[in-house]
């Protein structure tokens, strides 16, 4: 299946999770996401967990981790 990460098309096995796609996209980005300096969002800008399941055709973006809004 194909997943777009920061505009770059990544071809990966079907059933891949967010972590798999990130590793294939860039090991540096994956490590930054792991250590919390960057975060992963879906195509709508919502944060998505590393073990999130994906369907083909989705888009992800890796960006600098901002401060979260406080929970209720």
């Amino acid at each position, binding site marked *: 299946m194909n997943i777009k990460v920061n505009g770059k098309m990544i071809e990966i096995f079907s*059933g891949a999770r967010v972590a*798999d796609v990130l*590793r294939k996209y860039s090991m540096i980005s994956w490590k930054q996401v792991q250590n919390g300096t960057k975060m992963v969002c879906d195509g*709508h800008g919502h944060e*998505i967990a590393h073990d999130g399941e994906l*369907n083909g055709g*989705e888009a992800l973006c890796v960006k600098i981790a901002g401060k979260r*809004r406080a929970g209720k």
Partner: protein
Amino acid sequence: MKRGKRFRIAWFLPLLLLAGLACFSCASLPRAPEEARVVILHFNDVHGKIDNFAKVAARIDAERRGGADVLLLCAGDNFTGNPIIDQYQPPGEPMLELLNRLGVDLLTPGNHEFDFGLENLKRFAARVRFPIVSANIHPQPGSEIPNMTPSRLLTTRSGVRVAVFGLIQIEPGNGLPSTHPDRVRGLNFSEPLKKALEMKPLRRGADVLLALSHMGFEDDVKLAKSMPELDAIIGGHSHTRVDPAETVNGVLVAQAGSDLRYLGRVELLVRGGRVVEKKGGLIDVKELKDEDPEVKAMIERFNDNPAFSRVIVTASFAITGKDALGCLMTDAMRAAHGLDVAFQNEGGIRLRRLNEDITIKDVYTLDPFGNEVIEIAMNAGEMRSLIRDSFLKGNEIDLQVSGLSYTVRTDGELRIQGIDLRGPDGAALAEDRDFRVGLSSYVASSYEFKHRDPGRSLAATTAEALIRFLEGKPDLSIYRGIRRAFQDPPGRNDRY
């Protein structure tokens, strides 16, 4: 004013009786209130991460005590992701007891609800004290899931009628949810977005129409765009933290991340039989202080799982070294999934030694990452490309293997001169055929190698493969001094 109200009641009474005849479940319902506030608490993709349930239970009870019309919905994937809970016997028991204790009103199955097999899901469904909904799971005769219907009409304490239908994702390739096909044998699945449109008539008998979805946020947005009749979509699958809930085409789309880190809260103001205001967001569970002591005790009991210390098999000697352990792990991957060849990177082998009594805990200590088995069709040249990349990572052997052996020939500067592949019989591996190769998801995603087939997840972890293999009581004596990956001439860190 009172007279007018009585008149309205008298006028509507025959209609209500007719409606009651048409819909048994509506017959005993209180009349829908003029105005009511409905709170929908929801969670998804817990994956056996039970530790936050005590806080969540306390918050749910507080909401219920507050007098609002509260519904608690679960958007699927309760199983798989926490070995201590996954190994419980019978499978899924902790989640079953906790969901019953919380007083869930409705659940839709996710793809991981099938991880312990259809028969186990049927047992689970028969024992939960709440209904299950899925409109696009179609059991064949004999495979019916107890208590499961396409939709349900729930009635809140004050009489608001909430129609909910369930949906599960399917993969475009095989039309099945993301699980091993064997686990859903006996079930048919239809395309969820198309099926959802057939649920529009539910709107007529309800004040609120909800989709309880395990399709992922992206598909939930597509559903919202195609079905404005919906008031809200309560979602799961993609582990998306949607805070605040998003409004798409007038439909509120919500999802509460994963692992019970958040509890979703959607609030609907219903007036005159329709939703006039809606909003949603997430409650960060780590900010909650109160815990339900009874639920906390349940969690402690489940976390002290005796099955985790169960001895799977007793070897006649301790299996030591990455070569032997790597051969064992790759043999397990190959045997569990009927593969020709399997590879495992040394970084994924986290023990140096397996003692004679091998327990479930040992397996998860040896292989703790939850990597899944990925099947890829590869020929000899593509396997050489994989081995080449692995060797270049540290100029030494990295990949352990089953189904073949290999030698990386290098010159004095450790430049690769060639890679020889031999089959189990010692003969050179056939160059002109494809092999079914198994890789851990880490290797498949982080190693750079040529392959025409993108591959597919077999929806089972490498650790699960090892447990299955060891439960078959294999001859473990072959792992004494075994080696299948060589460097010629031997490298500086060569263990031989």
